């Protein structure tokens, strides 16, 4: 295992390629098991960086905080299952990492702008055009963009009501 980090993690930027490569490993692990809980301590361990600095380093490297990245991956998987399977929506929610249908439905709607059921109905009505490209690349390309926190998005859309925090949705 490479160790390009030194002991001044707090001072260094996230631009060291060795460290970026290790941060990528944490991103890969979330990609491969987005239904699992990914607390910062677990991700930091994968990347061999300090838990105190992991979230900032990840955001510097990939542009979004790790928990928000995980949310987009879960929604991406859920949209694929809604589109391509006949699984009940509750099963999809549980399989993609949510503990309740309510939280899943609310987060899905906040991010995509429609309910899981409406999304499924709309997809059913559309012909599939991208069958020639490898599925994962298509999936990644259609990943929901989440440039602001879910809670912020929710706040903006509802008018400044009392916003739930994004971390509420995470294990």
């Amino acid at each position: 295992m490479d160790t390009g980090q030194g002991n001044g993690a707090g001072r260094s930027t996230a631009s060291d390629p060795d460290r970026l490569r290790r941060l990528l490993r944490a991103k890969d692990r979330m990609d491969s098991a987005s239904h699992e809980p990914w607390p910062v301590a677990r991700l930091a361990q994968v990347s061999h960086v300090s838990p105190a600095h992991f979230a900032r380093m990840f955001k510097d490297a990939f542009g979004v905080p790790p928990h928000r990245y995980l949310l987009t991956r879960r929604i991406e998987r859920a949209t694929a299952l809604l589109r391509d399977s006949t699984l009940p929506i509750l099963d999809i929610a549980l399989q993609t990492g949510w503990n309740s249908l309510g939280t899943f439905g609310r987060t899905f709607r906040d991010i995509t702008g429609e309910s899981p059921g409406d999304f499924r109905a709309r997809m059913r009505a559309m012909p599939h055009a991208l069958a020639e490209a490898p599925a994962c690349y298509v999936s990644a390309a259609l990943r929901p963009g989440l440039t602001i926190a879910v809670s912020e998005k929710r706040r903006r859309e509802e008018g400044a009501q009392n916003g739930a925090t994004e971390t509420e949705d995470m294990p």
Partner: protein
Amino acid sequence: MTQGVAVVGLYVHDQDAALAFYVDKLGFRVHTDARNGDYRWLTVQHPEQPSFQLGLFAPQPPTVDAATAQALRECVAKGAMPPLVLQVDDCRAAYERMRGAGVEFTQEPIERYGNVDASFRDPSGNGWKMLQARRG
């Protein structure tokens, strides 16, 4: 075939590490390994694809300036380079063999619509999809 794409290059963080990976772990062969000072033109070939070379190039001056080289190294390490696809006859067998050799898989084989695919990365961070296409 006399016309077509002959070389496509990857940027790698370390050419020695890349060579060891593509040759020892993936089973590619060295096609050209030519040095001129700090510059090294390094290409490998899939054993069943003699008309195509995969270049393993280091972003470095004077080909690119130092700051650009650093930015490219960061992009590679972040997995931000374009998709690569390796076609195989038997994805699960290749997966077992390569995993045994120490290849870092990011997705184990999954069957989708008759295709089987897995994902791995080279030491630099370049991401490969390994694809067994549906037969017929």
